[in-house]
């Protein structure tokens, strides 16, 4: 005991000695610093001491003069206070050192630290010592050093004081950790290596599920293949994908910079539209891929987890089990990435061949990395969805789920079913509006309504039937739906979703291409230009074109009509949405263009008013293109449109005063001057002649950045930046040779209009028919190819869903068959029962999907403004397709049912 106390005493003494030495050294440094000449007054350097002596000897005026600062009476007081604080700091320091030498632990250093802070504060206060220094920053650093050293001394002493405790605690912690590690090692001692038998057992166990594993792997590979194809095609077609980014300059002005793609904006070049079609399809394929992945993973886990459960019960080490599982999944992932990579590359080669115009290499390490990253995100989503479903449906539960009854909605059957129907009807109605651009979210809402109808409608019917007389006679037939109501509805709903996508979405994509029969009617002119009447060179070019052999030119007045947004998807916050740009013409120009296209055209009133509230829209797009409104934001059915060039500062949520709200008096889909941007841009907006004349000058009174009406006094300020944009619409029919001869002039024309073109790469200053047609052909080819692929994949997903339903319910069906067999039911009757169940599935799915698809198809025709002739033509293809698709589904369901019956009977016999 005595020794311990003695040792403690020695340790304390040792620490005190270190503390004392530490404090003395630091405070001596502080005092030495007082003599360091850090103050630059005029041309001479001073320390605090020499500065004080100079002040005492020559007075403040001399110092003020030397420093070259404006005299002020406050300087004298300031310097006195400042020097006083310094003196106090020194006194406290000396006193502190005295207590240290006297071995008193009085903590005077706190006072010293506070004084050092006061020194720093005083240094930065006006009329004090630092005002005399020409090296202000150096001065701040120097007086700051006093405070830093005082703080280091204060903290250092505390650290030294607690040093032993800290070291002891750290030693104890390490000792505890070491002991725990040793204990763990001892308690979990499991020497040796697993023998060959172990690996054989694991392999045999895995091999039994090889078929399911392969299906999962192929599905994984397909999804990765699609992802890679998406990125690859995006890279190949992105050379035209230039976008304008708007940034505010230091002067508070908007600046447009062109980002991405080629430095030179190509006139039309590669078919970026086809790339967009592809990307959209890839997203859809990704979605169904995800759906299939979740389904397969659920099925796979349901099979594998009980097998690993046996290993766990028999005492396999956790690490070993996770290693086996990880290896299984890891190998699958790597293989699927390799196979998917190859499949994606092949797919791109196929697209390159089919579409044409896309050349070059797309593979790069970065692209592969991006694709793998996306795949990992998909895996993560799959994992979470699967986990939720696994937990939600209690698949990992030790209870026998097959025998558990699923809960059925007990109340509000009629109300919710009616609400579901209402939701469906409302969404179908919205889907039919051109302004809603066949929005996928509306389709989602419609399917949500269908789910409610199925869930509550079927439950309501079953509950109703149970209450009625004669319910017992239907008991056996209805039992699967009554007992497993939730699963049954989910299967039906899943099938309906896939069916609706095939029948109402992809089929339209596929067959609407056949409506694009007369491509020349979509591009009546070989050259379309948006020129400026005020530009002498433009007018000279027009004159030259008129005189060129083989060129027939027409020209009309026009102005730009800009909206608030031309993008279907909202952009990220950093980048403002691209404003829509269209061509504004007068009613008489419209009639003239019509007449030029069709000499038998009879003029009719478009119902336009003199105030420009009513407009007539010509959606310049082909019939295979989906519905596209003139503006994607701010009330698409009554858009806000401005009759001038784009005001880049206008926010799509708050259109400014110059943006008038318009009423669409009429609209049509045609290529009156040419389907230049397939309805995305460059549509024709027709105004009454009177309003057209008025609107021509609105740009003169509009702030070109924010769209507000300029006050008279502001107009001069904006005079230089005010710009009307193109004012002359020139259309020409010309042979190839003539266009070739005009090429240098057209290039010069383009350079003159470069600033207009730079804003949105899709809007050109001139369009050549052959380029635009090439682009459209590529888009249509892509649309057709992807629609076929999507139909195939979605149909395969339906079969997969049915297959998984049958496989997961097999055990339950075997038990039921055993039971019914024991109860004396004949084989024929038992088979009839299973067939009836699948018949109900098919009937409900076929009925719902056919009904909903018909409604959606009709509304799609309405949204796309199809004529009766168009509807007749497309229906002639859609109807046989729909019927044969439903028949094919029916036949395959029948085949699967028969196969299932045989499997179940076989298992029952074996049992």
């Amino acid at each position, binding site marked *: 005991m005595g020794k311990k106390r003695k040792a403690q005493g020695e340790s304390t003494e040792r620490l005190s000695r270190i503390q004392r030495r530490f404090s003395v050294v630091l405070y001596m440094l502080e005092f030495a610093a007082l003599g360091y000449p850090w103050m630059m007054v005029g041309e001479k350097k001073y320390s605090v001491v020499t500065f004080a002596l100079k002040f005492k000897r020559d007075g403040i005026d001399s110092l003020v003069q030397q420093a070259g600062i404006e005299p002020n009476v406050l300087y004298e007081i300031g310097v006195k206070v400042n020097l006083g604080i310094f003196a106090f700091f020194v006194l406290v320091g000396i006193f502190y050192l005295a207590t240290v030498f006297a071995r008193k632990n009085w903590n005077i250093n706190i006072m010293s630290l506070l004084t050092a802070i006061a020194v720093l504060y005083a240094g930065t206060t006006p009329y004090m010592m630092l005002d005399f220094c020409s090296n202000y920053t150096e001065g701040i650093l120097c007086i700051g050093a006093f405070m830093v050293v005082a703080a280091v001394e204060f903290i250092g002493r505390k650290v030294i004081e607690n040093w032993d405790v800290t070291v002891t605690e750290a030693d104890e912690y390490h000792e505890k950790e070491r002991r725990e590690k040793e204990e763990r090692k001892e308690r979990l001692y499991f020497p040796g290596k697993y023998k060959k038998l172990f690996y054989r057992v694991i392999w045999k166990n895995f091999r*039994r599920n090889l078929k399911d594993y392969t299906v999962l792997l192929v599905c994984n590979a397909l999804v990765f293949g699609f992802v890679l194809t998406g990125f690859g095609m995006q890279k190949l077609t992105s050379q035209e994908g230039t976008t304008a980014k708007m940034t505010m300059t230091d002067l508070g002005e908007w600046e447009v910079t062109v980002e991405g793609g080629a430095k030179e904006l190509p006139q039309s070049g590669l078919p970026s539209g086809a790339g967009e079609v592809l990307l959209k399809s890839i997203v859809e394929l990704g979605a169904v891929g995800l759906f299939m992945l979740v389904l397969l993973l659920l099925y796979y886990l349901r099979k594998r987890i009980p097998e690993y459960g046996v290993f766990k019960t028999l*005492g396999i*080490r956790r690490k070993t089990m996770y290693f086996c599982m990880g290896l299984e999944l890891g190998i699958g992932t790597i293989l699927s990435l390799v196979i998917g990579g190859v499949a994606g590359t092949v797919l791109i080669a196929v697209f390159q061949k089919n579409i044409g115009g896309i050349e070059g290499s797309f593979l790069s390490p970065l692209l592969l990395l991006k694709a793998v990253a996306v795949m990992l995100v998909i895996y993560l989503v799959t994992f979470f969805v699967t986990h939720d479903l696994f937990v939600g449906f209690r698949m990992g539960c030790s209870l026998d789920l097959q025998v558990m009854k699923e809960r059925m909605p007990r109340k509000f059957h009629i109300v919710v079913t009616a609400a579901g129907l209402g939701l469906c009807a409302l969404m179908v109605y919205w889907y039919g509006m051109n302004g809603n651009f066949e929005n996928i979210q509306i389709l989602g809402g419609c399917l949500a309504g269908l789910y409610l109808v199925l869930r509550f409608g079927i439950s309501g019917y079953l509950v109703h039937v149970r209450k009625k007389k004669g319910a017992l006679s239907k008991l056996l037939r209805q039992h699967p739906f009554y007992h497993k109501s939730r699963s049954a509805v989910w299967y039906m709903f899943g099938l309906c979703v896939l069916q609706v996508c095939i029948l109402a979405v992809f089929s339209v994509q596929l067959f609407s291409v056949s409506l694009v029969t007369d491509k020349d009617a979509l591009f009546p002119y070989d050259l379309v230009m948006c020129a400026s009447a005020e530009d002498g060179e433009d007018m000279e070019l027009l004159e030259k074109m008129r005189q060129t052999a083989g060129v027939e030119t027409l020209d009309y007045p026009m102005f730009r009509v800009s909206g608030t947004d031309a993008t279907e998807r909202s952009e990220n916050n950093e980048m403002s949405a691209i404003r829509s740009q269209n061509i504004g013409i007068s009613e008489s120009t419209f009639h003239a263009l019509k007449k030029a296209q069709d000499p038998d055209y009879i003029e009719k009133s478009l119902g336009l008013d003199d105030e420009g509230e009513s407009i007539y829209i010509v959606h310049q797009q082909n019939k295979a293109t989906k519905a596209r409104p003139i503006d994607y934001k701010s009330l698409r059915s009554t858009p806000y449109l401005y009759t001038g060039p784009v005001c880049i500062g206008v926010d799509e949520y708050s259109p400014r005063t110059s943006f008038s709200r318009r009423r669409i008096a009429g609209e049509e889909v045609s290529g009156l001057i040419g389907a230049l941007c397939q309805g995305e841009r460059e549509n024709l907006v027709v105004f009454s002649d009177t309003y057209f004349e008025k609107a021509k000058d609105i740009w003169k009174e509009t702030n070109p950045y924010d769209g507000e009406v300029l006050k008279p006094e502001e107009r001069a300020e904006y005079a230089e930046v005010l710009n009307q944009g193109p004012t002359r619409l020139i259309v020409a029919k010309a042979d190839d040779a003539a266009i070739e001869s005009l090429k240098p002039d057209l290039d010069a024309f383009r350079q003159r209009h470069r600033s207009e073109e730079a804003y949105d790469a899709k809007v050109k200053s001139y369009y050549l028919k052959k380029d635009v047609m090439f682009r459209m052909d590529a888009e249509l080819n892509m649309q057709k190819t992807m629609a076929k692929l999507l139909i195939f994949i979605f149909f395969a997903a339906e079969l997969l869903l049915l297959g998984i339903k049958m496989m997961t319910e097999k055990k339950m069906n075997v038990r039921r068959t055993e039971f019914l067999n024991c109860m004396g039911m004949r084989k024929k009757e038992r088979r009839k029962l299973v067939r009836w169940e699948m018949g109900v599935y098919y009937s409900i799915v076929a009925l719902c999907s056919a009904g909903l698809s018909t409604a959606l198809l009709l509304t799609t025709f309405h949204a796309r403004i199809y004529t009766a002739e168009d509807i007749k033509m497309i229906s002639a293809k859609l109807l046989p397709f729909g019927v044969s698709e439903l028949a094919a589904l029916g036949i395959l369901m029948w085949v699967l049912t028969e196969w299932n019956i045989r499997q179940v009977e076989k298992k029952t016999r074996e049992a």
Partner: protein
Amino acid sequence: MESVLRAEKLIRNYKLPNAEEDTIKVLKGLDFVIEQNEFVGIMGKSGCGKTTLLKLLGLIERPTGGEMYFKEKKVKELWEDELADLRRRKIGFVFQDFYLMDSLTVEENIMLPMILDKAEEESCYESARGYAEHFRINALMRKYPYELSGGERQRVAICRALVNRPDLILADEPTGNLDSQSGKIVIDALDQIHKEHKKTIIMVTHDPQVASYCSRIILLKDGLILDELKNGGNREEFYQEILGRMADL
């Protein structure tokens, strides 16, 4: 004498996300001791917590409350891998649904606990052959479980439970899926294990005839121990006693 298992106020609750009640209280505080070389039966109505109790005793699950000791070691203080080691070396399982792996042969199924214990291959084969011969299934060694009858499968499961020479055998309704003849073979086998191999056996059963083989019966009702019955030595009398008490369950 050191007990094999000891439970003090043993509680097990389950949380079910979709259930109407958030928590289901299955075992509500059980106290009992299982001594070495005992053959204990657990009886009770369906849903009274028999299988849950067996999972706790088999160290497959951990109790929600109370204490449980395996060979005087507090189960709560054991790590996951220690529990796995105990399951592998000290406990043998026989389940109603056999719990055999269809992908493995009978021989491999029997050897499985030894394989997981990194035992030498030769000793694995030797032990498997020994037990297979003992339970007269040596002709089935190359077959797969789905090729066997229920009784044969259960005998394979018993061999697997014994192969690592455990101290405790847990049987969850081992005759539940078998016809009376196969059931008799299985219960005779368990009885033989108890008597000849001096193993401690805990068996969950519904069948009073099967239960009459036990030296002691724990009667469970609504998650609590209703009573304990002791076998006086005469199986027929014990059977009658069990029958008499079953009405109370």
